[in-house]
């Protein structure tokens, strides 16, 4: 290095540069170098042994961090250039191998034991089919059902063999003037009803819907003219009796969206079914509330859009 023919550029870029001191410790900045020197200097002084290295000369002696134990001294000694070869054998190279276990997205997945994310990990391990509810800006967009391959703390998920059932969010005037319900007092319940209504739409068989054709047709016709809430309530009550026994086949575990009384469940099921009826009946006009389904083999979902995850048994 000290020869006149030393070419620094070549030395930096060549893969086979012979280093004068191959075992020299590398530091990221001057502060590290200083603290390293400080650490090495203190133990010899404390033990009242003769100074080990002349390299420590010129260093201002300062108060360093306390507790220099022999083990640390041993470790530091192994880093020293002059005493290098003899000490390294004593230390054993294995003590300084990767002491940190690798922490990456795959190793973090089993770490969430005991928490909801731990449940998710169980689904990955056991291959449980998952229903992921996806949200739109306000409320439910749809459901993705599939097998979970990987997840992370943001609830980003990678799913396989996915069936998605969804509905485009309704915008503009229609947002306020939904056919069946339009008063603000029922808006919150509308959102809940929408979710079960959409579920009702795709879980019902065609025969069931045809059975309700007559009543829902009258309901939808009158709804189209924009009736008041009281009339709708009455209509719903009328259907409730009939819808009562029809409710149970259609009312899967999807009705667990919120804590609701049986009354509202019946009412919403009836109203929802009627709404899905009017959706189909309205096909001559533009159908905003059509429910779509599609199958995707592998999909990645950003966790921000996940409403809830429901395990299918």
């Amino acid at each position: 290095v000290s020869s006149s023919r030393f070419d620094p550029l070549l030395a930096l870029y060549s893969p086979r540069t012979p280093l004068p001191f191959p075992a020299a410790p590398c530091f990221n900045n001057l502060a590290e170098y200083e603290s390293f020197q400080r650490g090495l200097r203190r133990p010899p002084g404390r033990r009242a042994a003769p100074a080990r290295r002349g390299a420590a000369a010129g260093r201002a002696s300062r108060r360093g961090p306390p507790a220099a134990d022999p083990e640390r001294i041993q470790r530091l000694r192994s880093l020293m250039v002059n005493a290098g070869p003899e000490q390294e054998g004593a230390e054993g190279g294995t003590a300084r191998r990767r002491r940190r276990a690798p922490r990456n997205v795959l190793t973090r997945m089993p770490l969430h034991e005991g928490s909801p994310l731990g449940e998710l990990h169980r689904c990955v391990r056991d291959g449980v089919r998952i229903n992921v509810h996806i949200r739109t800006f306000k409320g439910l967009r749809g459901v993705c059902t599939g097998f979970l391959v990987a997840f992370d703390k943001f609830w980003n998920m990678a799913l396989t063999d996915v069936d998605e059932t969804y509905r485009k969010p309704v915008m503009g005037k229609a947002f306020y003037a939904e056919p069946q319900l339009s008063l603000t007092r029922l808006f919150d319940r509308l959102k809940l009803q929408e979710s079960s209504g959409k579920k009702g739409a795709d879980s019902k068989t065609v025969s069931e819907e045809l059975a309700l054709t007559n009543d829902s047709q009258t309901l939808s016709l009158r709804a189209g003219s924009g009736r008041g809430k009281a009339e709708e309530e009455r209509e719903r009550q009328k259907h409730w009796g009939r819808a009562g026994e029809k409710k149970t086949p259609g009312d899967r575990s999807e009705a667990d969206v919120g804590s609701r009384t049986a009354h509202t469940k019946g009412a919403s099921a009836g109203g929802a079914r009627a709404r899905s009826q009017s959706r189909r009946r309205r096909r001559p006009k533009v159908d905003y509330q059509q429910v779509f389904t599609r199958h995707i083999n592998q999909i990645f979902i950003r966790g921000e859009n996940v409403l809830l995850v429901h395990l299918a048994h």
Partner: protein
Amino acid sequence: MEVSHSVKERTIAENSLVILLQGLCGRVTTVELRDESAAAGRVTSVDAFMNVRLAEVTFTDRQGAVSHLDELFVTGRNIRYVHIPDEVDIQATIEEQLQAIHRVRYFGGRDKGRREFLHAKH
């Protein structure tokens, strides 16, 4: 394998599923945005915040209007879905990307070069 040059982005990517998306670089996929529009094209790059750059894109607006774009940049927050091509093995892709990060981090051997994580000397 283009691993990010930033330590911060590398660690964010390493500990989240964004790394799976980074493994999709160079593949043709569809990205569905949270406003119901969709972009189908070749993934150029994905960063740790899930910002995605696509090339040769067929962009379908939320109204349904289709347009062709040479390049498209999507902010990570606006993404809802990313379709993963059928031929991609999710587990293998994640592991390959993790290895790429590992190689970059420990470049130059154990005792040589600048170290990303300070060796605990206490």
